[in-house]
Every structure is written in C-alpha cells, then in structure tokens.
C-alpha cells in the first residue's frame, strides 16, 4: 500500500456520530497522489459520511484528518476546496439557473489560484455542446458530469467521487472509467465510492471495505471478496 511518507490524505482514528448512532468508528487509511482507492460497503456503512468528513461537510468528532501534512479537520469546506480537496455528490448539486459554462467558471475563479482552462474541462466531459444551456435543463447523468467538472475546475489534488456510476449505461461507464484513470495519471488522488464492483475492479488496485462504520478490510477487491468478515457484512453470516 502507500507508505505514510508520501501520503496526500491521512485519516487515523476518525470517529463520527449523530446522536447515539456511531457512523464512523476508528476509521484510518491513507491515499497517495495518483492513486485510485475504492470505498465500498453496504448501505449505511458510512461511505458517504467518510467523504463528508474529508470534504468538510461534517467535522470528525475525534481522530485526525490531515491533507498534505496539515491537520484539516477544523477547516471549512471552501478552504479545503482551495487547498485542493474536491468532490462530486451522489445526487448532483449543480447551480441550476446558471449555464453549464458559468457553473465551471465560478469554481475556476473561486477555487483555484491557477488559470483554469474552462473549455478544456468542458471538452473532457463532453459538455462543450451544452455550454450555454442552463444546468437545470441537463439530464441527471449530464449533471453528474457537470458536478465533476465543477470539482475539476478548482484544480483538485484529491478528488472524492460519490457514486458516479449509478444509472450510467456501459458505454458511459467506460467513458467515466477512462476519465478517472486519466485524472489519476495526472497525479490526482481519487477516492471512489461505488456499488458497481466491476467498474471499481477495473480502475482500482486497492479498496477499503466499511461495515457499520468500521473498517473491515483494506486490499484488493479480489481478496476482499474472499474475506469472511466482508462477506458477512454484505450477505449476513
């Protein structure tokens, strides 16, 4: 796995609870630049909460969340975005009354210190033809891409992708797989939450399996499918 020294993101002993419900319990892992890590687990296992804790929507109750050597657990979302952490949302959250181009532009202006090439992002995502359309008029799948584009416009070093594959056809899935691999090749670290294990197997070398907020397994997806604890979490013992 990735050595601690070169880790971009490091979580250790992360805990998050809502009232009496412990959603993340002693979660710890790290991600290196250019690596694609899969995050899997049954519904309610804490995958999206993990993403929320990393991206700043929630703050961990205990434990360490560090990015590029800096403790970020108390930083608000926009600061994390400016540092280079970004995400897409399970249900795409685009700026519906703004055009596709404006959606990307706003993130390019506020989230990144470099000059971002808005047209290149639109091309990468196949949205160039829709650039002047209001984002609300796009299909859900197109909005998912735009959500990703908004994240990319901030020039992220770490990208959290929350269930982008759901509802895509095989051709679209191939496109997304190629896109994510391409991003990783540029040195961006990715954490991909996904139920489509086939898709995940294709793009990741390492997956983390969560069950009821605990880390059950870390390693290759193949090995995970033979791990009794993982099998029990998914299918019951």
């Amino acid at each position, binding site marked *: 796995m990735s050595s601690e020294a070169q880790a971009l993101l490091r979580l250790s002993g992360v805990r998050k609870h809502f009232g009496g419900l412990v959603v993340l319990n002693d979660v710890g892992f790290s991600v290196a630049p250019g690596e694609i890590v899969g995050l899997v687990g049954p519904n309610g296992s804490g995958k999206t909460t993990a993403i929320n804790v990393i991206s*700043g929507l929630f703050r961990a109750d205990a434990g360490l969340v560090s990015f590029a050597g800096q403790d970020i657990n108390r930083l*608000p979302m*926009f600061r994390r975005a400016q540092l280079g952490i970004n*995400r897409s949302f399970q249900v795409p959250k685009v*700026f519906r*009354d703004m055009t596709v181009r404006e959606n990307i532009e706003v*993130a390019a202006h*506020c989230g990144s210190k470099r000059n971002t090439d808005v047209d290149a992002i639109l091309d990468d995502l196949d949205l160039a033809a829709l650039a002047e359309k209001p984002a609300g008029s796009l299909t859900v799948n197109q909005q998912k891409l735009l959500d990703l584009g908004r994240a990319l416009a901030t020039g992220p070093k770490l990208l959290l992708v929350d269930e982008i594959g759901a509802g895509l056809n095989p051709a679209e899935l191939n496109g997304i797989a190629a896109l994510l691999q391409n991003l990783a090749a540029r040195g961006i670290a990715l954490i991909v939450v996904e139920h489509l294990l086939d898709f995940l197997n294709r793009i990741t070398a390492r997956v983390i399996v969560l069950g009821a907020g605990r880390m059950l397994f870390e390693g290759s997806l193949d090995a995970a499918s033979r791990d009794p604890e993982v099998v029990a979490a998914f299918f019951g013992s």
Partner: protein
Amino acid sequence: MPDDSLLHKLRPGALVLALLAAGFLLLPHMYGNQSLLFTLMTFIVLTQGLNLLYGFTGYLPFGYVGFFGCGAYATSLLVLHAHLPVLACVAGGGLAAVLMALVLGPLLRLSGAYFSIASLAASQILYFVVSNTNLADITGGPYGLKIERVFAPDASYLAMLAVLLLTSGLAAYFRSSRFGMELRAMKQDPTSAAMAGIDVVRERLIVWLVSALVAGLAGGVYAWNLSVFYPDAVFTLQISVFAIVFALFGGVGTVIGPIVGAAVLYTLYSAIGISSPQYFQLIYGALIVLLVLFLPGGILSLFTRRGIRVF
C-alpha cells in the same frame, strides 16, 4: 477587449442610475408634492435594499424595518448630542445599522422562515426598547424625537436621491460582477458553492451588512426630512411589508424589478391608499394572490419568460 466588455457590463447600470437621477431631479418641477416623491424614493431604496439581501441570497428579512428605524434614531441622536454636520449624522445612522446587523449576524445561521421570523422579532425588540417610557430621557420613548432645527426638505430630498443612486448602483454591481455570480451560485446551492471555493458565510454576511447600511442611511435621511417623528413612524412593520411586496411585485434578483415594483405600487397606494383604504386593501390583497399564483417571479418575469433578458 477587456475594456470593451467592462463598458458593456457597466452600461445598463449606468443607464438605470442616469434615468433615476434625471427622473427625480425633474419630477419636483412637474409635480408639486415633493414630500410624496421623497417617500417614494425612500420606498424604492428600502425595496432595493431588501432585494440586495433577498434577491441575491434568498434570505427574506421581515424585520428589515429595524435597520431603517435604527438609522433614523442614531441619526437624530447624533444631531441632538454630537453637533456634527447633518450628513455626518446620517452616515452615523448608516453605521449604526451596520453595527446592529453585525450584532444580529448570527441570525444568518437560520434559514427560510426561521430567519424571517427571527429578524422580525429582532426589529420588534428594537422598537420596544426605543419606545420604552423608561428611556424617554434618551430616545424620547413613545414621544419620539425632534430635530426640527436641521429641517431642510430640499437638501434631504437630494440626500435621499444620493442614497437611492448608491443602492441601485450596488444592485447593478451585484447583478453584473463576479461577486454577484458567486451570490447566485450560493443562493442555488450553498454546499456546492462552498466546494467551488466560495466563502459562503463571509459573502452572505457582507450582503447582510450592505443591505443594513442602505436601510440605515435611508432611515437617517428620512428622519432628517421629517425632523419630528414617533417610534411608530420608523419602526412600523408596514414598512417591511411594503418593501417585501413591492420587491416581489417587480421581480427580485434584478435591478429594475424593485424600482418598477415600488414605483407602481406606491403610486397606487398614494392615489387611493389613504383616501379609500378599503379599496386599496382589496386591490392589494388581490394582487398578492394573483402574483403568487401566476407570476411568482414578479411582473418582470413576463419578459424573462419570453426570453428577454432583464437587467
């Protein structure tokens, strides 16, 4: 090229400001009742100031009148006790409203109806404190304040015009700047906006303070123009309600919507609202129902629906 696009961006705003200035400088020569024109300007300022907050961030302050009253009282107290030039006192009134908004800043943690009601409560607290008999030595309590020695209808008319131009200039800036684009993003999805790198809390607070500032300045000039007023005159909830309905009628989130809305409805109010209030109430009520049912975007949405861009 950048100069060109800048000019292109500034043109609609400059046009609106020029029309307003020309209109309100010429109207007193054609229409005798300058006091009515003054009140009309006051309501355009308040409507536009409310639009700055509601139209661009989605926060609807039912207690908006609190800032107006705050500005009126601070200005009058400065006139009475500080012996500064009256314009400096008006500026102090604006500043007092900004300070009040800063104190009330945590209200922005609420959203939707909760925010509206909390801001209404805050303005009522202000009203009851100011009009309290025990404070009669300072605020005049229920008897109000008198600053008749600075009474100057013409100068205060021009001062209100200046506040009107400032407010409309701010709305034009919000409408066409990058800052305004960030506000639009925040209004549609604050979480996504934060992930786009926008400091949502800070920008919302800035707009809140700016909208309080213009209400405070308007309150200050209004007090100067009246020069004798009771607490009811500057804290009545009717002022908030008028500003809200005028803004919704014209169309929020635009520059000219609130101006048109306030101009049309205030004219209607001054034509029949006082002589036959029952018909005014009837028309007013019917208008609100019709607006909510058919034109939730205000009368300007008649144009935007047909693809005509409205500034």
